[in-house]
């Protein structure tokens, strides 16, 4: 089996691309990544995307991108795992290279959400959970997270204010992040004063929608960064059917396997890109990985444990909250960001001396968890 390296990465600023199509976004970002990999011959294309059929009336994204890149004959397909699609696409690319069957694989995560109005976007996101039994009763994706946040606050006696430190960290890091959607710092007061979307989740405590695409070229040939492990696990699709709703079992399983297979110690991880769709998701993920004790992640965030320059920086380019969350692209953004950190090209957002990084991408409410462990090649 081959080792798997990342030759190059590219990320478009998350934005509202009114003049660009889905194919334009993918082609732009893929071209940059291929150029940065010295124009290597691509053997396979994998596209991570959640909702193009519903949002853009377009499926068959593998062939769409291959065709747009003028790569007649190349193998290509789309991978879907809700908001975890980008991470799942990288996982499939990793396996392709690792198998020894492919030398260079292009992975692109893309989502173009701004073709839809808000109620349609709400519907599209709800498709991560059961159509028959969750969407049918009016529960949207954000409302599931709101119920979880309320349960978390009640169970662990945590004030809303404490949870607001996650968006504060994200926005602070986004100020100098070239591809972030919202490059503006916010305070706990700002979050607290923002509009309630699904009580207790507010506008500034939920990841925004946007258009975006990120790409990486994976290779069997040594490059600046190596993927040490790539793991996916699942939890019950219907959140109400989980015996312990405050346990992120998919994250627990994927993390445990990722640690075993990469053979590293948790303490050696220099930074983490955590799936901070909402503060409660970031909290439960950090707790599932044993980084924080149960019910204590918000306090750790407030204490500065996850800030840049501290023991474990998270959301180093703004996370989902401030870099933006073009859902099916997010996992690919995280990998591109980890690449920049480990290749030492993160500019003002550089985690000094970063050698090991972890990305955590989720589909649904911890329904699918995708974890990657990456290292700098010395």
């Amino acid at each position, binding site marked *: 089996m081959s080792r798997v390296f990342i030759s190059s990465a590219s990320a478009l600023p998350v934005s509202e691309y009114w003049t660009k199509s889905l194919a334009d976004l993918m082609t732009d970002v893929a071209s940059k990544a291929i150029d940065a990999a010295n124009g290597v011959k691509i053997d396979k294309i994998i596209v991570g995307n959640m909702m193009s059929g519903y949002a853009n009336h377009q499926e068959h994204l593998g062939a769409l991108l291959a065709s747009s890149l003028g790569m007649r004959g190349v193998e290509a397909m789309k991978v879907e795992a809700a908001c975890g699609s980008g991470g799942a696409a990288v996982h499939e690319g990793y396996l392709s290279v690792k198998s020894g069957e492919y030398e260079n694989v292009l992975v692109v995560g893309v989502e173009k959400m701004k073709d839809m109005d808000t*109620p349609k976007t709400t519907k599209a996101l*709800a498709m991560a959970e059961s159509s028959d039994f969750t969407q*049918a*009763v*009016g529960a949207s994706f954000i409302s599931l997270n*709101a*119920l979880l946040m309320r349960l978390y606050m009640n169970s662990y006696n945590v004030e809303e204010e404490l949870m607001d430190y996650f968006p504060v960290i994200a926005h602070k890091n986004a100020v100098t992040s070239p591809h972030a959607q919202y490059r503006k710092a916010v305070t706990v007061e700002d979050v607290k004063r923002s509009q309630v*979307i699904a*009580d*207790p989740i507010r506008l500034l405590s939920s990841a925004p929608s946007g258009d975006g695409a990120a790409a990486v070229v994976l290779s069997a040939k040594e490059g600046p960064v190596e993927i040490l492990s790539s793991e996916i696990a699942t939890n019950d699709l219907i959140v109400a059917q989980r015996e312990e709703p405050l346990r992120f079992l998919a994250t627990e399983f994927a993390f445990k396997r990722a640690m075993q297979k990469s053979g590293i110690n948790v303490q050696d991880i220099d930074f983490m890109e955590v799936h901070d769709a909402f503060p409660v998701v970031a909290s439960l993920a950090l707790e599932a990985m044993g980084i924080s004790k149960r019910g204590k992640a918000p306090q750790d965030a407030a204490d500065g444990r996850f800030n840049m320059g501290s023991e474990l920086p998270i959301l180093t380019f703004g996370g989902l909250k401030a870099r933006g969350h073009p859902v099916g692209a997010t996992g690919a953004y995280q990998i591109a960001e980890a690449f920049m950190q480990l290749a030492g090209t993160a500019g003002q957002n550089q985690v000094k001396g970063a050698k090991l990084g972890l990305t955590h991408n989720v589909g649904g409410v911890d329904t699918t968890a995708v974890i990657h462990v990456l290292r700098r090649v010395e």
Partner: protein
Amino acid sequence: MNVIPIAYWRNRKVYTRMIGTKCKDCGAEFFPPVRVCKKCGSRNLEEKEMPKNGSLLAYTKLSEPAQEFKEYAPIYLGLIRLDNGVNVISMIADADEEKLKAGARVQATVRKWTEDGKGGLVYYGYKFRVLQ
């Protein structure tokens, strides 16, 4: 069309009578129905009507619901623990925020869920209301 009529028809027992499943091997109960027992892995399950009373664990007020519910916004949703220990997420009927407290006793009732456009089919199903 935002609701799939045939899917609604297929699930009508679940929506109007809260029919779930019970495992014949280990006794675990599930709602909505499952094909394979999540406790013991058995495929030997039978239909089981859920109790209609329970307690509210948490609620949320949703100002921007999905398109089939947008004309009813804001809607209230509750995470409810039924008296058999099964959790259910449901819209809350006649919501009064004063009474929506964790631990409040609630009961299922059948109400209108949504209507498929003007003159379209009307869909009904369970909603919970707070008991006095």
